[in-house]
């Protein structure tokens, strides 16, 4: 005789954990699997430094993706991030020779925040689709870059150079850059914000159903403007990290980074429709993208086009597996 498993009332924590975190767990597991596979295939791959390098090389993307996560959780999207990153490097590089570095840092962060807030306000008050508003923001920021200059400007400010070239040794043969610490701090603060503050919960509510959130008396306007401001701030901070990484400002920096950030967020299991997802997923998403790149450069024999094809294929395999495991996992749980 067949029986039906009735949903029993498990202790709250136990019951809640697996279903909600499943996509994130699966993503994490697949990441580890990919790393292991790389280690078997390539000599010198399975070292801790490889993972650390992924962090070092993607610290700026991580920060930008954190901001993007906030936006996507409300059901919006921010296409301007890449350009704002570029604008930040450009402003920093052009001001640094004559301005103290801490002022420059404050200034670019302010610019990023204000740009974000402005876009958020337009999106909310004039009810224009985020895609378009932030696309205009993308044109604007990129355009401002070129107005400042079309050449790449080197940064030789001592503070910036010092941050750029400091190595923090964790163990012999294992090191990270200060930017990684900054990025991780951002992740921690953002996670706390999302899960332990009203703003964070409002973000999920607005993403779940904006109309309902409004009727429930939540500050929808403030929340929406806040997430775009956060995204702008994160982009500016990401831009600073990129200036540390590159020690230059350039209008063509970070072209298409918005897509990388969106991809990272979505690979991490966050729904573009909003209301569902975790920052941990975003971190994993960034790591996955970074690891794919590492694999490609270890492979080392791919022509330019095969590089693209293989990136696409790896992404496809990853997403298919993720999707497959998550759906079967969920249906088994029911």
């Amino acid at each position: 005789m067949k029986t039906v498993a009735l949903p029993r009332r498990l202790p709250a924590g136990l019951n809640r954990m697996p279903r909600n975190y499943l996509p994130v767990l699966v993503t994490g597991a697949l990441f580890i699997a990919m790393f292991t596979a790389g280690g078997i295939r390539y000599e010198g791959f399975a070292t801790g430094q490889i993972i650390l390098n992924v962090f070092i090389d993607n610290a700026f993307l991580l920060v930008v993706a954190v901001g993007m996560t906030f936006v996507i959780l409300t059901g919006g999207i921010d296409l301007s991030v890449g350009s704002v990153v570029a604008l930040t490097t450009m402003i920093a590089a052009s001001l640094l020779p004559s301005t103290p570095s801490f002022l420059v840092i404050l200034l670019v962060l302010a610019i990023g925040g204000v740009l974000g807030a402005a876009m958020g306000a337009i999106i909310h008050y004039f009810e224009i689709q985020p895609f378009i508003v932030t696309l205009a923001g993308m044109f604007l920021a990129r355009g401002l870059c070129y107005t400042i200059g079309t050449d790449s400007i080197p940064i030789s400010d001592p503070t910036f150079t010092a941050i750029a070239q400091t190595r923090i040794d964790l163990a012999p043969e294992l090191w990270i850059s200060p930017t990684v610490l900054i990025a991780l701090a951002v992740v921690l603060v953002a996670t706390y914000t999302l899960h332990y503050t009203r703003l964070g919960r409002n973000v999920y509510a607005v993403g779940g159903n904006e109309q309902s959130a409004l009727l429930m008396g939540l500050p929808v306007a403030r929340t929406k403007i806040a997430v775009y401001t956060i995204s702008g701030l994160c982009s500016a901070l990401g831009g600073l990290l990129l200036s540390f990484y590159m020690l230059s400002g350039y209008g063509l920096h970070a072209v298409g980074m918005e897509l990388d950030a969106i991809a990272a967020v979505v690979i991490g299991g966050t729904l573009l429709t909003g209301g569902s997802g975790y920052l941990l997923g975003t971190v994993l998403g960034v790591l996955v993208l970074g690891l794919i790149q590492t694999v490609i450069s270890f492979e080392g024999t791919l022509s330019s086009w095969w590089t693209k094809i293989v990136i696409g294929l790896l992404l496809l395999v990853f997403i298919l597996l993720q999707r497959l495991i998550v759906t079967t996992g969920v249906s088994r749980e029911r």
Partner: protein
Amino acid sequence: MAEAILRMTGIGKEFPGVKALDGVDFRLLPGEVHALMGENGAGKSTLIKVLTGVYSIDSGEIELAGGRVAFAGPLEAQKAGISTVYQEVNLCRNLSVAENVFIGREPRKFGRIRWREMRRRTAELLRQLDLPIDVSKPLSHYSLAIQQMVAIARAIDIDARVLILDEPTSSLDAGEVAQLFRVMRRLKEQGIAILFVSHFLDQIYEIADRMTILRNGRLVGEYVTAELPQVELVGKMIGRELAELERLDERPPARTSDTLVEATELGGKVAPFSLTIREGEVVGLAGLLGSGRTEIARLLFGADHAGTGTLRIGGDQVNLRTPRAAMARGVAFCSENRREEGLVPELTVRENLILALQARRGWSRPVPRKKQDELVAKYIKALNIRPDNPEMLIRNLSGGNQQKVLLARWLILEPRLLILDEPTRGIDVGAKAEIQKLVVELSDGGMAVLFISAELDEVLRLSHKVAVLRDRRLVAELPNDDTLTTDVLMETIASGGAR
């Protein structure tokens, strides 16, 4: 009489093409339960939304506790002490139950949300409403009725002077309603003013002290409940007498026609059950919240996959993988959850109405426009859908009228088995009688109907037999003979079929 806490005077509100409110006066006294009455589309919800700042008013003024107010939105209204449950369940289904109750006013310490405290308090609150569910699960996990209870829990927990409940009981069963009323009485004693909307007249007479009646966006009058007999109330609401209800009250004779649907040990999210439905037979499903009625319906329609058992429709064994497959077998299903599973909000009334018909014909054989217009006109008239403009976006219709459109969507298919899950939810007395009459006519014409309703009266009135569910298990199948009364049904539900 005490000074009114809320006073609305000369309220006017016009939507493009519709005058939803026209010079309406309304006042609410502290410590009273005040019913707002009217047909579908009379303007009840609009009046509430205008009050809480969801819509701006075109004319008139609103005073709260003597001071003039014009809220810019629900947030402000809430801050001023008005707590509201809107008609459609307006909660965030992606958040947990606890969060839905507390979001925006979470218990905090140094700005940090105290999750444990929040869950504890939610569980406590829901226990008062006799709803011992896991509060950490996402709301989407629960049936619509439970969601409705959660919305109520949220509203009554907010510290408010005015509590507004727009059709909170539309999918609740008697037990839940009793719980709600208990809480409402307690709040009333504390001097809170309660505005209550419901199409269940019994409930109104049970709880309301006074009532205001609207018709077509105009004020009909303000009455003390005890002084206004039911018949008169109905007359004032719909502007004519209502005789149909009584006619239906005779018991339908049992059907002996051919078996149309035969489920054997069919199981999925419900325990395996066996059920037969004959042609022209109305089978009622009775049970409490979350007892699994909806899930049985979904299994028969192929909306969920059956894990076990067999299903025969019209003699053939079928394996329904999609709703489309069920439709091909002549099964139609009108869902209880009209917002998530019914409406396509951006489409017009006409398009929503012909959607299933068009889907069945496929993309390449459009329903001719003339045919569409005929069908739409016919059902707008038959179900008294208002406003009678087929080109209006369905999301701009009042809740009850939306429900009628969805019902019509399935009726035009002329299915062999029509599954109605809470079809009269949010529908006014007049239209409810129309729909009940329709069900009887259809079944007389040979259509089988699976009828789900939280209102046991209604189930009894229409069904040839009643299947009773408890805890997602079919526990009894009772012929609707003279011995079957709502009390017997209640008892069967409570005892789990040990009759």
